[in-house]
């Protein structure tokens, strides 16, 4: 370590090296005295000090811009890299320019031409080019990482001008622009990645070796650059001095990984953090009376549901019985469990997405209809079913066990006995994805901000509907109709007509499908209102670090 490094570290604490060293050594033995000399707490006006964010470690495993796909990555992807197009603020239906300044979609919806912004520069000051974009997208596809399917259906990506890229799809994808806003589809500096073992070749999944280097270095054109990632501890971002847009409002951001929401709360209240990202419902509601803390809610685009196999329980082979479950649940009462960590949902498409069924058209409790359904289904005295849930899981921040217990208690009122089977999340997921569960409490989290990430999955024959719940178009006329509506919506470019189809399909799934959609989930963020005036929220990347306004 150089003397400069040490000096910088000490200066960053706001005290001289000699003072810090002497006092720290002496007082480490006597922590009570040490507190008196602690550096200024973060709650004081930032005044050039770092912004401190606390969030769960979650599943952040890599910072490779062409391979990272975890929810915790998106806030960093947005800060470090540019995407071809993006979303402004929390508006999910307004596609905005980013690396591409303008774009044009052909009438048949198969060809997208993007004019790239010539002002975009990487953090080393070099100009971003169409070749960087081609490299990044091809590497993303060929690494075959967990998000690589996002570009399924892309027939070709090619340069169509000096600063222009043409993307041709093999089939219509009405959410293609929405997909491109995902901070997994980043534009990174090709030359730097190649110099460190990266490749966009077809065999990249076995030959690319740039990942470890990209975990320690960023090569993007976002408002920040990566300073340091200490796994499990913290990640430090610095302002990108060569950013081509409006410079980031803070010189540096420290993201500390704190898994326990109680500790996140404590750090927020103590002023050691400005933003706490993962507040649980009870903790967030308890912060209501704190003068210096404001709680923000953002839809997590991850509805929780209760679903069942159409085949595994004899009673549930009769679809008439399904109504008993749907109408037997006290949806309004669930609000007492999820508190601010959730809200009503219309169906499986989160209400804040285009094409969603409005929240007020969601499922409602009706015990008379539930009992009538039991009679109609030949089970007037009720029946018994087995349902799994993740004992170590939660629906965004709402603990899965209490949701499962609440629903089981609701259904017991009409004679349906739900034997709850707590499982580790990994085991539950394995069995559910394998179509082995009789019934399951689960949620569906967002991959991108489009209805096609939800509706086709739950439709008859979809990834969830067919394989996991054994519900197929051939099962009934209604199932066939839903499948047809979804297919038609996927081919309809006019938004009004498209959304009419998706809403009709969701209504029919609510009515005829083997699911009860319980609630949409929310993130709840605690923010020091004495330091931060406004936070530009977004369901995908929590908030835009570069768009924060300070007091």
């Amino acid at each position: 370590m150089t003397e400069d490094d040490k000096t910088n570290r000490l200066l960053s604490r706001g005290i001289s090296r000699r003072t810090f060293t002497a006092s720290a050594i002496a007082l480490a033995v006597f922590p009570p005295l040490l507190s008196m000399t602690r550096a200024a707490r973060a709650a004081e006006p930032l005044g050039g000090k770092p912004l401190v964010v606390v969030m769960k470690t979650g599943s952040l495993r890599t910072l490779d811009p062409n391979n990272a796909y975890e929810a915790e990555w998106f806030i960093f992807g947005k800060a470090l890299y540019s995407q071809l197009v993006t979303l402004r603020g929390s508006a999910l239906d307004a596609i905005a320019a980013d690396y591409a300044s303008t774009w044009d979609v052909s009438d048949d919806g198969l060809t997208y031409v993007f004019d790239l912004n010539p002002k975009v520069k990487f953090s080393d000051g070099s100009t971003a080019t169409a070749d960087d974009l081609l490299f990044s997208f091809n590497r993303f596809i060929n690494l075959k990482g967990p998000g690589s399917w996002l570009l399924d259906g892309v027939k070709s990506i090619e340069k169509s001008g000096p600063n222009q890229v043409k993307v041709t799809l093999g089939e219509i994808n009405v959410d293609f622009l929405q997909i491109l806003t995902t901070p997994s589809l980043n534009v990174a500096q090709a030359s730097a990645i190649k110099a460190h073992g990266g490749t966009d070749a077809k065999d990249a999944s076995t030959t690319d070796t740039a990942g470890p280097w990209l975990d320690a270095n960023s090569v993007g054109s976002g408002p920040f650059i990566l300073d340091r990632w200490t796994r499990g501890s913290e990640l430090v971002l610095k302002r990108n001095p060569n950013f081509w847009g409006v410079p980031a409002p803070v010189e540096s951001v420290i993201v500390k990984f704190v898994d326990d929401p109680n500790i996140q709360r404590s750090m927020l209240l103590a002023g050691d953090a400005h933003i706490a990202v993962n507040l649980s419902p009870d903790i967030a509601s308890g912060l209501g009376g704190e003068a210096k803390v404001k709680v923000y809610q953002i839809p997590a685009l991850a509805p929780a549901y209760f679903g069942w196999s159409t085949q595994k329980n004899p009673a549930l082979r009769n679809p008439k019985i399904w109504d008993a479950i749907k109408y037997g649940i006290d949806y309004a009462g669930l609000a007492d469990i999820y508190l601010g960590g959730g809200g009503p949902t219309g169906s499986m498409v989160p209400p804040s997405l285009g094409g969603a069924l409005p929240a007020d058209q969601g499922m409602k409790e009706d015990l008379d209809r539930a009992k009538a359904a039991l009679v109609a289904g030949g089970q007037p005295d009720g029946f018994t079913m087995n349902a799994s849930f993740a004992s170590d899981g939660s629906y965004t921040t709402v603990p899965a066990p209490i949701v499962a217990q609440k629903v089981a208690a609701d259904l017991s009122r009409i004679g349906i006995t739900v034997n709850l089977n707590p499982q580790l999340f990994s085991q539950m997921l394995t069995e559910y994805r394998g179509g082995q569960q009789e019934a399951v409490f689960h949620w569906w989290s967002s991959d991108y901000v489009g209805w096609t990430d939800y509706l086709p999955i739950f439709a008859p024959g979809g990834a969830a509907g067919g394989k996991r719940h054994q519900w197929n178009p051939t099962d009934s006329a209604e199932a066939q109709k839903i499948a047809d509506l979804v297919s038609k919506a996927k081919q309809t470019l006019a938004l009004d007509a498209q959304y009419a189809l998706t809403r009709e399909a969701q209504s029919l799934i609510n009515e005829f499908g083997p699911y009860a959609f319980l609630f949409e989930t929310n993130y709840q963020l605690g923010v020091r209102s004495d330091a931060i005036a406004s936070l530009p929220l977004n369901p995908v990347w929590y908030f835009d670090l570069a768009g924060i306004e300070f007091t």
Partner: protein
Amino acid sequence: MWTFTFRRLLLLIPTLIGITLITFAVTRSIPTDPVAATIGEQAAEHPEIVAVYRAKWGLDEPLPVQYLTYLRNLVRGDFGDSIYTHRPVAADLADYLPATIELATVAIIISILISLPLGVLAARFRGGPFDGLVRTVTTIGVSMPIFWLALVAINIFYFHLHLVPGQGRLDSGLAPPPTVTGLYTIDGLIAGDFGLVANALYHLALPAFVLATWSIGLITRVTRASMLAVLGQDFLRTARSKGAREPYVLVHHAVENAILPVITVMGLAFGDLLAGSVMTETIFGWPGIGRYAYSAASHADFPAVMGVTLVVAISYTIVNLAVDLAYALIDPRIRAAMS
């Protein structure tokens, strides 16, 4: 003694092979698909993505082949790649293990410094108020849930009194020292950065005390019991009758003869501290092997689980070996037997 040590180290080989076999069998018998537990919902429905994962981690091979491949790589020092982090398990362990070793070491030092005097004095004043107090406090120490204690301690000492930091190994934004051992205190000393060493100690104080509560209770109780067994023996009376002063009798005759069971318990306690600090690490945001192990287990990350198991097993074995060697250093009869 060298022969003894060599023989014990040699025994480590079949022990570790047995551990790999048992761990492999147990992890593979759990009805969980590590790929399904790792990748997203949509990715799981894409066979080409799933195939890449299965091929990369050899999950498409028969189980015996997977096991033999693992053993072959292990001989070369390759623990395999973590399915969850996608990094070599050895690299993950190198990142996380030092944090736990540092925490556990400070915790065991605190335990020894507190529990030895407490145990000795409690035995010396058996039946008195001090003994009663020690027995009560140590009973609480061994029976109190660590996670609860950790939350209470943070609430009091960090949140309300601001005496200690709440999270992590260093203050926010303070860069770790250049890695040599991974122990920030040691690496800080090597780098000549005493401010950083102080900061690391400051961050160690509360989690180490919390982690030490259980072992303080245990070691104190064993020390007390062991001392009681020795204090009534004839050789102490002889020493006193020859004019030896009480403190000398207590330290040089009683403690030396009572220490062997205490050392055994210290070794076991240190092993437990290394392996069982999940909750402490989670609550204190300590990036140690406990959190890593929990994450690995909950994601069915087989290579990581096996790597952690092996490291913990090796740690236990080495600590036990150290305990046995300590016996020899303290007791000439054992030293003679080893020779």
